[in-house]
């Protein structure tokens, strides 16, 4: 049994708002603040590179607010050509 998480929350209505979290890797400093606040363990610093597990993300935007460099944003799906 691995990757158990008591903090995984049920998906909220925000999950269906059509947005999608996008990382601007040029701006990301790999600081680890966003994984610390993500309630669903959707974000992980893979050594130094930030990765998103989209199935877990409900677009709550907390990581966007916390990011010290503005590297994260939630964009409307149709404007998102390529995430990450």
């Amino acid at each position, binding site marked *: *049994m691995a990757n158990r998480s008591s903090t995984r929350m049920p998906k909220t209505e925000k999950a269906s708002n059509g947005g999608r979290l996008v990382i601007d890797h040029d701006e990301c*400093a790999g*600081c680890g*603040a966003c994984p*610390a606040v993500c309630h669903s363990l959707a974000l992980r610093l*893979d*050594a*130094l590179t930030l990765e998103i597990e989209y199935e877990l993300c409900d677009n709550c935007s907390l990581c966007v607010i*916390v990011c*010290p460099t503005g590297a994260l944003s939630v964009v409307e799906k149709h404007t998102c050509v390529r995430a990450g």
Partner: protein
Amino acid sequence: MVASAIENADAVIVGCGVAGGLLGGRLARDGFRVIVLEKRPQIGVPVRCGEAAGSRQEISQFIPIDESWIVAEINAARMYAPNLTFVEKRFPGVGVMINRDEFDQALAGQAENWGADVRSHHEVTGLRWRDGRVCGVKVKRHTDKTTYDVDARVTVGADGVESFVGRWANLTGHLRAKEIHTAAEYLLEGEGFPTDTIEIYVGRKISPGGYVWVFPKGDRFANVGVGVHPKMAKNGTARDYLHRFVEGHFPDAKKRRFIAGGVSGTKPLKTMVGDGVLLVGEAGRHNNPFSGGGIMNALEGAEEAHKVLKIGLERDTLDNEFLRRYDKAWHNRNGQVIHRFALLREFFFKLDDDDMNRVVSVLDKIVSARPGKITDYTEVFRAAFKTTPGVLWKARRMLW
């Protein structure tokens, strides 16, 4: 699919920052087989720290002082109010400024010299469980993208602010917005920096819910950073606040390094232990929640964890009940103080710029009236609240 290889250890430490480096080393020195896993390719890089540490004497309890990673002395602290009046207190020899990357590498080197197996670029991706208790970790080796498992009698989460170990082991949750400071810092080169004084600027406009720091880093250099409360910062990211401060105060300085980070600011955890697992350092929320400082707290936390784990490993008793000794020891050493600083943090969020101007002016009076007598910051704040009725009501039951 090929099954992962399994290695064995007495203790596996996740994260080789200050807490992991010290604890791994101390357990190895006792003769235990210790594996320390660090996901970053190079220990301590990139730096995520303002780099202000305790005194030489305090540090030398954990590692022999090496002047090569000490870059400046801290003999005084100065706090600027929003109206730029300030209070200054001299504390000769109170701390040193360090190169944090070299410091973490020195701790890792000490651990290796004592026999620990320190592996960088090895990331822990999950825990191993047996009969409801943690019995090791799953590892991804980034160099060749292979995976393996470590079976260990005890697993330590020393994985810093992100701490997934705490969450996998059901000991911690995610940090809420009010429990994190988001921060950005430049290493600046130029003129006009303090040489042996750490400077703090407070104000809702320049650093809502946090502060700006100007820390000396040797001749012509300083770490200048801003930490903000993410929900109170309505005027951009931490980096935007930093830019504005630097443009206003040090417009001619050269920006030599940029770093960012999140610093936890919570009350102490109810428990930092489970069956076969414990948390140390920022993973265990050991930071001072008011200042964000965590280097010395992480070292002290590692020291307490070491004492309990040494006995636990010798007796092969590493269950939740036994490990609670560590909870208790840490709480007695630092937990109560951390709790008070967490309350002070909540109080600080309520102050507006006028309140802060008043607090700094009162602090100045108190500090000038009692040179040398102050041993505890909370004592100063308590005196300030007593003599500043305007902000007293906001501090109801916050401090005492």
